[in-house]
């Protein structure tokens, strides 16, 4: 349905490329862009710039830089959709584009429906009438495609789970509504505590689903991993080993910053996305030149850090410095060169940093299996099963579950504050509506049916 809110989507396709474009269209496009975009020094606001101009700057997510970008501001009506449009050109990594999109959604944009930019262009008179049929076909085919992919995802446990939670919320709503419509037969007395228990349980289930979204994301995109260590600790041979013949290289994605490369690989089913900080893999003599600092820079936003230490040499200032800087992060220490005479052991490392330590030999390829086990425990609480576990992987679905959870939080607050039941159902119905976006069910007759099937109404 046509709305005049602001929509956003990645418009260059979710494949890796040198440059990606995330596009926003709608009344608040510029306003939302200004919330997340800042030029160097922060002096220029996009709201003040002339139309059809390009601006250099960074996109920030709550103060944390996401990417270095160019923002192109185009004001209505001379735009594709005839609405205000902002196009943000970023680096073409899938992760960057997704993150950038997520930041825009968080700041007030709505994820565009398939074909929605074109639809708006048409509805605003931008596209010639002769193209109407093409637009209609586009809408039909993309809605079918979206439906198909949604259905595929829903055939598994996910759809069942969401339908179940939604029905639980609907049952509570029906109880309240029944008591409103027939107060003399159906009493709310003592029901509030029960209601509170239900809401908490439902929240728990949605939270668990959102938690799997994180796992789902990891499965889809890989764990961002950085290898650090002092010169000659064996970083490059470690990387080569991990990427080596025994492991499948999944894709080769051009990096998030211009001078790094990302390599994706599967570690016993767990995808790792290893950030090669300016060529650890290049030549041995180059490796020597890479300072500790540079690797640590990359480690800042990594999800997993593999800290290579040389067990054939005593610990030195470099090791201590690295360990200090990595405190509080998810670190696995690889005590490399276990094939050589050992000068230090795991207990020496443990004194520096609280992290699992694995004796490792990049040269002989030992210790990999142990690394797999540790990573699994760190990210999936030991269990990962691509076949059985329910993953919430689609952004649209995540958005809906998250909104449903917000509504239930509101409801919980309302119950605790003694808000009358008929107002609580506003939040319940909102939660049902949101989950219904995923399952394709709408509140309405659905609720009335539940009321009649569960409660004995009337005279």
């Amino acid at each position, binding site marked *: *349905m*046509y*709305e*005049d809110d602001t929509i956003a989507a990645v418009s260059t396709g979710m494949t890796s490329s040198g440059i990606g474009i995330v596009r926003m269209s709608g009344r608040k496009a510029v306003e939302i862009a200004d919330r997340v975009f800042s030029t160097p020094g922060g002096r220029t606001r996009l709201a003040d710039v002339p139309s059809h101009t390009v601006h250099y700057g960074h996109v920030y997510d709550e103060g944390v830089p996401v990417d270095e970008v160019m923002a192109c501001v185009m004001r209505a009506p001379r735009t594709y959709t005839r609405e205000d449009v902002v196009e943000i050109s970023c680096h073409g990594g899938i992760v960057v584009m997704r993150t950038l999109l997520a930041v825009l959604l968080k700041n007030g944009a709505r994820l565009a429906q398939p074909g929605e930019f074109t639809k708006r262009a048409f509805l605003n*008179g931008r596209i010639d009438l002769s193209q109407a049929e093409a637009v209609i076909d586009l*809408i039909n085919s993309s*809605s079918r495609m979206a439906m198909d992919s949604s259905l595929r995802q829903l055939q598994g446990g996910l759809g069942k789970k969401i339908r179940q939670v939604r029905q639980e919320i609907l049952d509570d709503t029906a109880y309240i509504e029944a008591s409103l419509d027939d107060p003399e037969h159906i009493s709310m007395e003592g029901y509030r505590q029960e209601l509170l228990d239900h809401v908490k349980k439902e929240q728990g289930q949605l939270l668990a689903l959102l938690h799997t979204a994180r796992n789902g994301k990891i499965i889809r995109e890989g764990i961002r991993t950085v290898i650090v260590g002092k010169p000659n600790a064996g970083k490059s041979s470690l990387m080569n080993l991990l990427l080596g013949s025994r492991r499948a290289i999944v894709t080769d994605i051009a990096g998030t910053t211009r001078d790094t490369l990302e390599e994706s690989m599967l570690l016993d089913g767990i995808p790792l996305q290893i950030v090669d900080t300016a060529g650890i893999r290049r030549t041995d003599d180059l490796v020597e030149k890479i300072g500790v600092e540079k690797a640590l820079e990359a480690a800042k936003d990594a999800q997993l850090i593999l800290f290579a230490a040389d067990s054939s040499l005593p610990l030195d200032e470099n090791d201590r410095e690295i360990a200090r800087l990595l405190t509080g992060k998810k670190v696995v220490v690889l005590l490399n060169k276990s094939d050589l005479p050992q000068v230090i052991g795991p207990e020496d490392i443990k004194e520096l940093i609280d992290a699992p330590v694995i004796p490792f030999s990049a040269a002989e390829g030992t210790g990999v299996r142990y690394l797999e086990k540790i990573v699994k425990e760190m990210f999936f609480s030991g269990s990962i099963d691509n076949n059985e576990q329910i993953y919430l992987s689609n952004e649209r679905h995540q958005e809906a579950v998250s909104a449903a959870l917000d509504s239930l939080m509101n409801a919980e607050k309302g119950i605790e504050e003694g808000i009358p039941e008929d107002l609580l159902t506003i939040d319940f119905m909102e939660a049902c509506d949101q989950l219904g976006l995923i399952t394709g069910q709408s509140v309405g007759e659905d609720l009335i049916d539940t009321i009649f099937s569960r409660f*004995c109404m009337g*005279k």
Partner: protein
Amino acid sequence: MDFVYEAYDVAVIGAGHAGCEAALACARLGLETILFTISVESIAMMPCNPNIGGSSKGHLVREIDALGGEMGKNIDRTFIQSKMLNTSKGPAVHSLRAQADKALYSSTMRKTLENTDHLTIKQAEITDLIIEDGQIKGVKTDTGGIYPCRAAVLATGTYLRARCLCGEAVTYTGPNGLKAAGALSDSLRRLGIELVRFKTGTPARMDGRTIDTSKMVEQKGDRRIIPFSFTTDPDSIQKEQVSCWLTYTNEQTHQIIRDNLDRSPIYAGVIEGTGPRYCPSIEDKVVKFAGRDHHQVFLEPEGLYTNEMYVDGMSSSLPEDVQYRMYHTVPGLEHAKIVRHAYAIEYDCIPASQLRPTLEFKKIRGLYSGGQFNGSSGYEEAAAQGLIAGINAAMGLLGRQQLILRRSQAYIGVLIDDLVTKDIKEPYRMMTSRAEYRLFLRQDNADLRLTPIGHEIGLIDDERYEHFLEKKHMIEEEDKRVRSLMIGTGEPVQRFLREHGSQQTGKSLSLAELIRRPELSYDILKDLDPDRPSLPEAVTQQVEIGIKYEGYLVRQQKQVEKFHRMENKLIPEDIDYRQLHGLRIEAQQKLEKFRPLSIGQAGRIAGVTPADISVLLIHIMQINQEKAARAKAGKGDSGE
């Protein structure tokens, strides 16, 4: 022998709750109106429950009143007990219900009709509609009387081809043994109007002297009675009230029912009509809710000058010998004499998808319909539709804009939109859960929502309107005052807050901010507000609700705005859905059947998806642009 009478502007067929409102509205707007009834004694008859209002139905009555209808005034004159329901819940679902003196309700309404100028009452059965060129021209009675008219309102209730069932016994009568209307159904079918068969039922009536109320729980009315009509002075209606009585069915009752299910016309398959789920017969309850060992039963007086009591909760179509045994198992009814048996009634009505939201038939100009004939159920639902059908018949004849209330404006809007937009499978009852914007649709603000419309139409006189404007002004002023009044942080304020279990405050707050606190209220805060003006409760109540529930109201307002954007996108009347490329077959068929007025309405039709709506929007865009282009070209031609 046919006899042609003088011509009327409007003919109303049926004098139940819908017909009365329709006829009054037309006559009060100055149109010569004739009201047909099979029996003058049955005008505004209440053939089922002896009450008006209740959850969401009370809202309808308030809305009827705010638009200038009669139901609220009539029940204020004839009630014998009154109760505000749901007072422990939010203000949006507070709902007024009054027990009526049935006979008095009926005769009082009759007197009002009789004393209304331009209104003629006629006892006759209408058997035919006279239609020429798709326009109503007159109606014909069973005795050959022909009444030319320019508009007509069908309000036949449950009388069309009615039959009553009590076990194996079937009688071809309307409610209460009154004559059924047989011939009109055929006439309607000949005109291409589709009919369906619905069913409803009513419980037995008992002789009150034979009921042992000592085994029941007394149900009293409210201490302070609140009137339905905004024009009724509350002080003028405080009076002695009668009580209702609560008792329960038990395992024995249920066993008798289970043993005799094969003799129930429904379970034996004799009844063809679809019954309502919200008003199940006692046999339905026992079957569907088998786990329950008891059900509530209310004994309700039918009036002050009769001993008859209505057995609320035990409607049935079981044979009378089963009824006899079943009722006598209920505590307090062991020796009760049954005055009238329970029965189920089947009747013809229409799928209201044949109507525009104005309640005019899509195919026949000037023909309107309201009430149970449209597939609804309940006195209040009927009256509401009757009023709108009457108003629109009048507006049509006067060449003025017709009235379509939106879902965001009134329960009446929800009711009619549902009836004309949905596939209704059972008699439709208003429910508060059907109103998505109910926070705005409160019974306490029905006048604020609708009285300006009633005045515009001409059913609210200037005096009442002035009075209304004054109230509105007072609400606005008082709202402004409490929002700007700062109460400071002095010791008296802190002490006051402590005493009322409310958190003390470090900064000075407005009175409104304190009203918003759950533990405080406008009334409680009067000690902190010494200069408070003396205002009617109806005024301060509006101020308090507006402040206390502001957060929710603002959220709902956003939903309403979104809803309006879709309602404002109109679909061209002459659109041909079969020619629209890209619409799915199911969507085409549904859209063709309902022919919605707006994109919003189209979106509510079951079977029409968001993608269909997108496609439809694009076509409408295209149609409008082509029209604009043609208009421009046409203008150019004429200029040469």
